[in-house]
């Protein structure tokens, strides 16, 4: 398994646990008095699970196992692959930090953190598509 795939898959596993812990926190607020930010974690919970775990796992396995791009560059652009990894994870972390704050304090400067996270994740998606497209081919 290539280094980048190991990073994708191991990071995905971390998000898997983090997402389910977030799910526990969301349930706990029904029986315990927790800070109001916890209630604002609902969309973060869903995106940690679907982007951090599911999509990131897919990205790692696709980079590893899809047909070779060329004999010289079997996995396409490694640089674009790493860009995908960092853009996606920087975007997700910024979202997890900024979104609950913005939900409770709309108009705060944390809004720009959320906006930046949106752009970073979008760029990650585009980078993954660009790097994978040429590897989806008949033998």
């Amino acid at each position, binding site marked *: 398994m290539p280094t980048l795939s190991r990073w994708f898959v191991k990071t995905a596993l971390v998000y898997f646990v983090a997402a389910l812990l977030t799910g526990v926190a969301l349930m706990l607020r029904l029986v315990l008095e927790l800070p109001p930010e916890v209630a604002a974690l609902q969309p973060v919970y869903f995106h940690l699970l679907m982007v951090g775990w599911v999509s990131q796992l897919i990205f790692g396995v696709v980079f590893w196992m899809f047909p070779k791009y060329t004999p010289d560059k079997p996995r396409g652009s490694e640089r674009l692959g790493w860009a995908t990894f960092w853009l996606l994870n920087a975007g997700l972390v910024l979202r997890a930090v900024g979104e609950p704050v913005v939900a409770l304090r709309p108009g705060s400067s944390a809004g720009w953190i959320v906006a930046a996270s949106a752009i970073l994740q979008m760029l990650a998606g585009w980078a993954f598509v660009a790097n994978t497209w040429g590897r989806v*081919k008949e033998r």
Partner: protein
Amino acid sequence: MPRLSVWIIRTALLYLGVGFTLGAMILFQKGVPYAGGVWRLLPMHVEFLLIGWTLQLAMGVGFWILPRFIAGAPRGDERLVWLAYALLNAGVLSAALGQWLRAPTIISLLGRAAEVLAAATFAFHAWPRIKPHGK
């Protein structure tokens, strides 16, 4: 990778690109409001990423890597999977665009029904391929 998987997986990649873009537009609005109407894209964002990307990718990879038959067509009757592919994408587009354009509910409902038919057709095709290698 068989040609049909190429079509299915590339279509899934298109949904990923568009779905992430729609999600970014909505998330940006959440952080720095610029157009409240962007929230109407939420059902399309969800439909594109859950069904159009994740499930469609699984179908494309499944058709490619599930065990093949020794006799006859190695991957069975491909026409069933072409049908599932057409139904799934007609369903995703109907369900997503129907909600976005506030079309009569029947449009989105028919879209969801087409998605169910796609799933059933794909399952019917894949079922006998879930077997030990060499049988």
